[in-house]
């Protein structure tokens, strides 16, 4: 007999109703295959692991405010680490902020996943199978955290229930009068980060499985990207945010009605990635940094918002240019009237006439039907009026001449850009400084508010940069989703032994310290050095914005397989989960580590053996912080750009404290003092020149074999010499024997080691004394005592 879900009445027992809810199949649910000690970890289940990390990678606090104003006892002045009225000191308050930031990020991704899951279950049913491509390990984070192997999308219901429950517990801990110890706030922040990875994994796996997004496809097509790619004579629909549900309906309608040659449709921020993953005809304008700039250009005829990375002033900005805003997600509603139950024609009439500036429509099918029709009506009207916020030529000249060079705009600019200098140059007809500013400007618009003579500064920058904007046309390889198991089998050994120098994951947002070009430059350098570059989100977009002399972008020059010297785009923000999950796959597939409910052992493996580093060069959001924190708990170091110090907390190792670098040899539990590898867990770099050698250094792992160590050391030394004009001060720390030295420089380096007091047998060209430890190919590094032979 097949039992199905539903309500049943048994013949003869009409007054009895039997409700069958979720059906648990053998070997399918939590508990049945758990392999580790912490399935569904509670908020202190992994505290020992967190403490191990925190003991080595000490939290470093860089407060943006010395005050706490969370409760009515305050404001409290915590300067100098004083205690406030509730007893919390600045260290504790800073750690609490780290927790709250992580919770916000995790909640954002998880709520995104929840919205998608409810929607996709309604559309496809709970039994719709998970299909992410050629992998047995389909949901590595879910397995490692939950201890279950999901088979259908309905299997993710208890996963999100778990995440939501844990986030509630964590949020409670942040209330005044709850947690007080910085150390435990940090443990909880790490927990929230881990939950964030889980929420993201659910969101992306279900959309890949149900919506036909690429499934571990290394050869996805290219999508156009840039502010200059659209035919602005056509009606233009721009979707803004992160959630594909609504844009998918619009794309389906356009496909059905054959409208792709009549309407331009593109996305801003991660929605754009997922639109191209859903339908390769869609295009990408760029990151959130382009949002205000593109709206002000007046090019969009309809704006569709979903959730995340949508400017709070989008309705106000759009209204000025008669661009209707269609809000499609209950989390962002802007006070718009709910028109979900009104007819498409009635809504269109009100928007075209300007009666309403926008509409909230939660019926996504209606959104799909309405938006193209609305664009076809709005396009001709708006284009006939030439609506734009940018000044004309005469107005531009008048505005730049008004500048008093007071520098208030520079003081209000997040990047401190020299706007007044560009104004002066523009007065004499030189627009080049403005064109440079266009790339460095993050498009926040704070300068507009600061100008005492009311120059609309951002509009002036954009007007002056029309030439470079027209040329802004790049290519981004459409997001591929997960790294497939076969690729891991092929590459895992190289990664663990170090013969592939490392995996560098370029992720996060566009709040770069010096423009988008830096990301391209760093990625190109590291690709040439055979690092595997994995990317997602806005960073993946900006990598595709520049071309070489032959007119090719990096995506066109480097293939997308998970092997050395390749460049992969996994997809949108939630696709970050696959990058973190790749390390779990390596631990499982290459090393045979058990995954289910086994976070600590997996993270321990990743920390000690897999040379993977995250780079969030332009991270701005709470989401990015949560992702970084989740990666940290998984043993993956992350480097942020200098703005990252405003997250107020980092995890920085102290290489001079030798006792912090004791680890265990799992073969016998003996203590081994090792080189600081990886040296930091979360740190910033000031410039791209500083970033590159730091990335190379953070790829060192205690498990490197000599060939791998020599390769990593080669890049560390070369990058430092090339970009910082010096040998790294600590290069010798990573030398365990002469075999660790780069072959081409071995003799020269041995002489340098001799100069440091190391003993050399020159006949054999061998190091006889000096290294911290010897190379031991059988060394089994671990930070977890129970994983040692005989350990409990």
């Amino acid at each position, binding site marked *: 007999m097949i039992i199905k879900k539903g309500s049943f009445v048994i013949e003869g027992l009409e007054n009895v109703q039997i409700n069958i809810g979720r059906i648990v199949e053998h070997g399918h649910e939590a508990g049945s295959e758990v392999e580790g000690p912490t399935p569904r970890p509670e908020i202190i289940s992994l505290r020992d692991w967190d403490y191990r990390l925190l003991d080595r990678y*000490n939290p*470093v*606090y*860089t*407060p*943006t*405010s*010395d*005050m706490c104003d969370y409760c009515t006892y305050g404001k409290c*002045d*915590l*300067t*100098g*680490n004083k205690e406030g009225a509730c007893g919390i000191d*600045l*260290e504790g308050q800073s750690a609490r902020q780290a927790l709250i930031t992580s919770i916000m990020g995790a909640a954002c991704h998880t709520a995104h996943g929840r919205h998608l899951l409810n929607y996709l279950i309604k559309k496809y049913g709970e039994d719709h199978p998970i299909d992410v491509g050629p992998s047995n390990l389909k949901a590595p984070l879910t397995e490692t955290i939950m201890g279950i192997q999901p088979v259908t999308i309905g299997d993710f219901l208890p996963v999100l229930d778990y995440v939501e429950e844990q986030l509630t517990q964590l949020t409670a801990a942040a209330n005044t009068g709850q947690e007080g110890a910085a150390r435990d706030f940090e443990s909880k922040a790490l927990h929230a980060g881990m939950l964030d990875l889980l929420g993201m994994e659910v969101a992306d796996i279900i959309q890949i499985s149900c919506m036909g997004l690429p499934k571990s496809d290394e050869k996805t097509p290219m999508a156009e990207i840039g502010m200059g790619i659209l035919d602005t004579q056509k009606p233009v629909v721009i979707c803004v945010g992160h959630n594909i549900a609504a844009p998918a309906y619009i794309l389906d309608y356009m496909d059905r009605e054959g409208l792709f040659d009549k309407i331009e449709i593109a996305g801003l921020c991660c929605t754009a990635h997922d639109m191209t993953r859903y339908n390769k005809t869609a295009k990408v304008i760029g990151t959130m940094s382009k949002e205000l700039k593109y709206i002000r250009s007046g090019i969009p005829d309809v704006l569709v918002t979903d959730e995340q990375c949508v400017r709070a002033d989008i309705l106000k900005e759009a209204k000025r240019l008669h661009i209707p805003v269609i809000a499609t997600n209950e989390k962002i509603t802007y006070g718009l009237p709910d028109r979900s139950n009104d007819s498409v024609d009635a809504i269109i009439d009100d928007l075209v006439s300007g009666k309403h500036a926008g509409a909230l429509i939660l019926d996504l099918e209606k959104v799909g039907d309405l938006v193209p029709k609305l664009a076809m009506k709005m396009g001709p009207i708006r284009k006939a009026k030439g609506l734009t916020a940018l000044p004309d030529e005469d107005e531009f000249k008048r505005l730049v001449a008004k500048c008093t060079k007071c520098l*208030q705009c520079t*003081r*209000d600019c*997040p990047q*401190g850009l020299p706007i007044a200098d560009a104004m002066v140059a523009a007065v004499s007809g030189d627009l080049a400084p403005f064109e440079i500013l266009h790339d460095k400007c993050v498009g926040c618009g704070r300068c507009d508010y*600061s100008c005492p003579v009311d120059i609309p500064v951002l509009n002036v920058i954009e007007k002056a940069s029309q030439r470079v904007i027209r040329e802004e046309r790049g290519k981004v390889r459409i997001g591929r989703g997960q790294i497939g198991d076969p690729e891991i089998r092929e590459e895992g050994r190289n990664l663990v032994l170090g013969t592939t120098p490392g995996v560098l994951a370029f992720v996060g947002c566009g709040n770069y*310290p010096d423009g988008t070009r830096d990301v391209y430059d760093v990625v190109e350098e590291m690709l040439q050095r055979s690092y595997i570059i994995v990317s997602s989100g806005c960073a993946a977009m900006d990598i595709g914005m520049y071309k070489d002399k032959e007119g090719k972008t990096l995506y066109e020059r480097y293939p997308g397989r998970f092997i050395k010297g390749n460049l992969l785009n996994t997809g949108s923000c939630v696709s970050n989960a696959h990058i973190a999950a790749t390390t779990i796959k390596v631990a499982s597939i290459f090393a045979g580590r058990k995954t289910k409910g086994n976070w600590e052992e997996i993270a321990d493996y990743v920390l000690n053996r897999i040379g993977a580093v995250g780079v969030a060069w332009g991270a701005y959001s709470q989401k990015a912080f949560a992702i970084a924190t989740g990666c940290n708990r998984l043993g993956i170091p992350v480097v942020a750009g*200098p*703005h990252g*110090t*405003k997250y*107020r907390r*980092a995890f*920085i190792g*102290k290489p*001079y*404290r030798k006792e912090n670098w004791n680890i265990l040899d799992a073969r016998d539990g003996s203590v081994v003092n090792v080189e600081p590898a990886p040296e*930091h867990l979360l*740190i*910033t*770099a*000031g*410039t791209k*020149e*500083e970033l590159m050698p*730091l990335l190379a250094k953070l790829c060192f792992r205690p498990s490197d074999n000599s060939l791998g160590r020599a390769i990593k050391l080669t890049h560390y030394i070369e990058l430092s010499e090339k*970009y*910082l*004009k*010096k040998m790294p*001060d600590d290069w010798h720390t990573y030398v365990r024997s002469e075999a660790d030295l780069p072959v081409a420089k071995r003799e020269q380096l041995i002489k340098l080691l001799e100069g440091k007091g190391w003993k050399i047998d020159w006949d054999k060209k061998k190091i006889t004394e000096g290294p911290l430890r010897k190379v031991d190919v059988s060394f089994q590094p671990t930070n977890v005592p129970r994983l040692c032979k005989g350990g409990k």
Partner: protein
Amino acid sequence: MTSAVKAIDTTRQAVPFDTGNIPGPKMAKAVMPSVAGKMLAKAKRPLLIVGSEVHDRDVLERAVAIGQTGVQIAAVGNAYTSLGDKGLDVHYENMHALASYLCDPGWPGFDGKGGYDLVAFFGITYYYASQAISAIKNFSGIKVISMDRYYHPNADMSFGNLKNDVFIAALDEIIAELRKDKQ
């Protein structure tokens, strides 16, 4: 570099250069360069932290001149590319890591002689320096002087927001104080 020192006032415009960078009730006292110079000269273990805005010729010359008076320099960001070949006691360090080490009483310093009692900042991206100074302000007993062209509220002492010529003249005055102390 001029040897004559202009009479200047570096205490004007003592408001956070980034308008929103208001940390709390304790904000830096605005100082004249002679005071900053004397403090640097009298410190037992001073450290000059110089960053990626040091490459401008006028600024670089002054950084080198300060280093030549014997002050140890931490070159953060990419500053080492301009300072490394000048025969100075200069050490590369990541600024975020340096802020962490400075807050650790157990840090042996760059030369193994222990931590520092005074650190002076200049030539660093404003917001980046501000965050590092915040750590030192709140979690160490080290005195911080900002000798940059921006007012840094998290420092103990700072110049106000200066025009470039005043900034250069202020550095000259600091150098003069350091040289005077050496004599």
